[in-house]
């Protein structure tokens, strides 16, 4: 039974739980066993909260027995990136500086998942402070791609994508600052959605770059992704950047198909620098859309070429400030030292890995007196221009489609020595963050030579996640599921 439970997608499991064909305890036990059996190879989890999960499952079963299920997620085993605070459960953001840190409260989205009755299996591996595109910047060891254990799952939400591909959980949450949900989703052959900035509360999410960070769901299917988004989206008065707009019903129009949909194809996104096999699959997906009755429209995002440059000023600038609180005074690591200055220096020198240090330095420099106008302010102007490009494109199309990443999952160690190459992995995803728009990654087949998943990226109008999900679902239905990942048995 347990193997077949693992093959169910989230919605199917939810249905089985509702029909009491399976219990949450069985599902949870199956997931915990699967984690035990596979995570030594995969490394998706930094922490498994087995006991809490079993207790939550028992409670969910008790509710189901009373006919009082809280939501479609009631009793469904999920896991969250270690950037989400969980009360009393160690939360590190993949950093040594937070080793052993026990938060006194739950992140808003964790609260929402618990309120929905979800079972939380544990905390997922990630690049330190979400800085990275391969999960290799985790202070607790890398995560591996279940499609090929020699390759990265992508990052920074590497654990969130790998856990799904390895069938360790039915849904996960990640965060996306420059592509950190979409790129790992593409690399691991799952669905990942970065919602519109402000759609999901950031309260209780360890901040990397506040104006870009956005939590979002990852799942094996589009419908599962929609279900998860439904559970976590919505206004939160503790996050003043969260939107008060009503949340759409993401499942209602999900099967609406692609007929009549105008799909914008940015000419800059297929203009080169793209792996040939990735391009083949992306173009194939676009043709599928046409066959389904959608119209392809060529659009232009001329300023997206400045996206990486602008991003690597804005994100480090904000990070340099957000990471100032890790000073050894109130929580987390405190290095022994003779005086205050030395305590700061030693704590931060030992606590932060190379990538946060690099970005703190970049950001500090970009914000320095005399450089602010030339760097940070100018980057913000680029941001406005990038958004205008999209606004212009959306006068002629409903969604913009293109690749998620220039390549499929790369090998561990392949780019660690070259941060710039690593940064370029985000070239197509970063613009949605800069423009605060929703972006989704949906599998569009396997690379013709390498046999690894390729993701199609869809970017939508602000708060129009429903259209993204409908479009993604149409493709998913048309092309059928990917084969199971061969990396883990």
């Amino acid at each position, binding site marked *: 039974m347990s193997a077949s439970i693992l093959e169910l997608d989230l919605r199917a499991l939810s249905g089985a739980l509702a029909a009491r064909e399976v219990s949450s305890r069985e599902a949870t036990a199956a997931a915990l066993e699967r984690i035990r059996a596979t995570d030594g190879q995969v490394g998706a989890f930094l922490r498994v909260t087995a006991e809490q999960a079993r207790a939550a499952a028992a409670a969910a079963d008790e509710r189901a027995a009373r006919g009082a299920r809280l939501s479609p997620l009631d009793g469904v085993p999920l896991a969250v990136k270690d950037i989400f*605070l969980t009360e009393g459960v160690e*939360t590190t*953001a993949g950093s040594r500086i*937070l080793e052993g*840190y026990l*938060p*006194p*409260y739950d*992140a808003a989205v964790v609260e929402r998942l618990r309120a929905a009755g979800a079972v939380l299996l544990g905390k997922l591996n990630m690049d330190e402070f979400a800085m990275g595109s391969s999960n290799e910047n985790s202070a607790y060891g890398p995560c591996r791609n279940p499609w090929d254990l020699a390759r990265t799952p992508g990052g920074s939400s590497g654990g969130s994508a790998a856990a799904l591909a390895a069938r360790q959980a039915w849904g996960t949450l990640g965060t996306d600052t420059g592509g950190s949900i979409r790129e790992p989703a593409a690399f691991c052959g799952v669905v990942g959605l970065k919602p519109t900035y402000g759609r999901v509360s*950031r*309260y*209780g*999410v*360890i*901040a990397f*770059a*506040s*104006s870009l960070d956005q939590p979002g769901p990852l799942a094996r299917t589009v419908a599962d992704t929609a279900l998860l988004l439904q559970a976590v989206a919505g206004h939160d*008065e*503790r*996050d*003043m*950047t969260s939107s008060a707009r009503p949340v759409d019903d993401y499942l209602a129009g999900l099967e609406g198909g692609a007929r009549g949909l105008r799909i914008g194809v940015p000419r800059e996104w297929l203009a080169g620098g793209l792996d040939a096999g990735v391009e083949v699959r992306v173009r194939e997906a676009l043709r599928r859309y046409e066959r389904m009755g959608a119209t392809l429209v060529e659009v232009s995002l001329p300023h997206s070429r400045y996206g990486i440059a602008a991003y690597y000023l804005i994100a480090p*600038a*904000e990070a*340099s*400030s957000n*990471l*100032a*609180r890790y*000073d050894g*005074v*109130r*929580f987390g690591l405190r290095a022994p030292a003779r005086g*205050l200055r030395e305590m*700061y220096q030693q704590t931060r020198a030992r606590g932060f890995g190379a990538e946060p240090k690099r970005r703190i330095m970049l950001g*500090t420099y970009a*914000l*320095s*007196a005399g450089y*602010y106008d030339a760097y*940070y302010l100018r980057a913000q102007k680029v941001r406005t221009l990038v958004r205008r490009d999209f606004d212009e494109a959306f006068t002629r199309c409903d969604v913009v489609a293109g690749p998620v990443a220039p390549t499929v999952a790369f090998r561990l160690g392949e780019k660690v020595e070259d941060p710039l190459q690593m940064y370029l992995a985000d070239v197509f995803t970063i613009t949605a963050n800069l423009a605060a728009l929703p972006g989704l990654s949906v599998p569009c087949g396997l690379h013709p030579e390498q046999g690894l998943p390729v993701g199609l990226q869809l970017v939508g109008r602000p708060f129009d996640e429903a259209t993204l999900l409908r479009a993604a679902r149409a493709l998913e239905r048309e092309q059928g599921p990917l084969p199971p990942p061969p990396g883990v048995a």
Partner: protein
Amino acid sequence: MAVSDHDVVLGLEVHAQLLTRSKIFCGCSTAFGAEPNAHVCPVCLGLPGVLPSLNRRVVEMAVRTGLALGCSVRPRSVWARKNYFYPDLPKGYQISQYELPICEGGGLDITVGGAEKRVRLTRIHMEEDAGKNVHGLAADGSSGVDLNRAGVPLLEIVSEPDLRSVDEAVEYLKELRRLLVWLGVNDGNLEEGSFRCDANVSVKPRGAEKLGQRCEIKNMNSFRFLRQAVDYEVRRQVEIVEAGGRVEQETRLFDPDRGETRAMRSKEDAHDYRYFPEPDLPPVRVEEAFVEEQRRALPELPQARERRYVRELSLPAADAALLTAERQVADYFEEVLARHGRTPEAAKRAANWMNGEVARLANESGLAPPSWKLRPEGLAELLGLVAAGTVGGPGAKQALEEAFRTGAAPAAVVQEKGLAQVSDQGAIEAAVDAVLARSPGEVERYRAGNKKLMGFFVGQVMKEMKGKGNPAVVNALLQKRLEG
């Protein structure tokens, strides 16, 4: 050359804690004096994952203050992060405003040595207070951090360098303090640090156009210390200039024990605060209608009230100033006037009693006007008795004390204690005659020209009448008998 050969140029930056119940970005209490770290939560502790959530009362108070100071209120102002490391600053940055503050311009009138001048304001912005480092508490000599104050809302009110003497600086600060307390936005407590001031001080040769290099002086938590610090700093700078040196731009700390300022950090050590717009908070939008609503809700301001008392009630300037030092006293006085009358005579009588006996009793009791048992109608009643001659000065004082202590109606006290004065011609005549009869020597000397003895006779008659004789009638009768 000497200090007197130099112009002093001063600008003040005031940090005023706002009297909100909760902190600016979380629900923690702003109460002063609790156990260290009793009023903290994840937000004001700057724990991972927290976000600020703006207390709208802060904006309201900032707008109200700005309007009272004649500032223009920005329809859109922007929060900024001021980045620096210090243990009392939990997030490693202070949320403040930088390029686009909530209020700009405006000014405050001050009067020094009879001359009135307007001190222009540069800006007013909102920000969060930091906590406090606490030294010498732990047995092992380590220092602690108390974050009760972290996140208490502040207004920073920055003046232009329009002040030309320490007297002007002190007057400006007093006037500003009176206004903020009057508006109910600040408690004006310098000692507890809820009203703090930094001074930018420079000197230049008398009449010179070009401003000298300025130093910023911190840590002056009383008007006296402001005076001492600025006096010291001016002397120090003049000495440097006189000796042919140059004043270095630096931040200096006032040491109240030694009465001098000390270099804290030089320009080279100055922080680069790396200001940038706070991404966690949307810009503050202030609608025109909101501004108008706040404007309409403004009370009559202390200076306007003070001027009106001089103009309409013909009160001496000193009386008007005393009556308007605090809004509660001024409002009490208004209620007394409403019952006792607004003629110059009635107003003067009310002012004298308010600033005299009532102020003395209030001081002794330590109570603020709303807690006084003597209500304005009671004081008006007593003033009415005084005006009518029903009760004399000593009797009225006695009645006032009783009424202030117990809240009894003054008229009833006068009645019960027999404090009414005797104006009856016959009774006073009898007393006068008795006194004159037993003092033939004094009468003779008086008539011989020793007019000072009148005081003796009045005293004797009053004694004869147990203090209740109407002094006017007693005087008149004595005059008549002695001169006639």
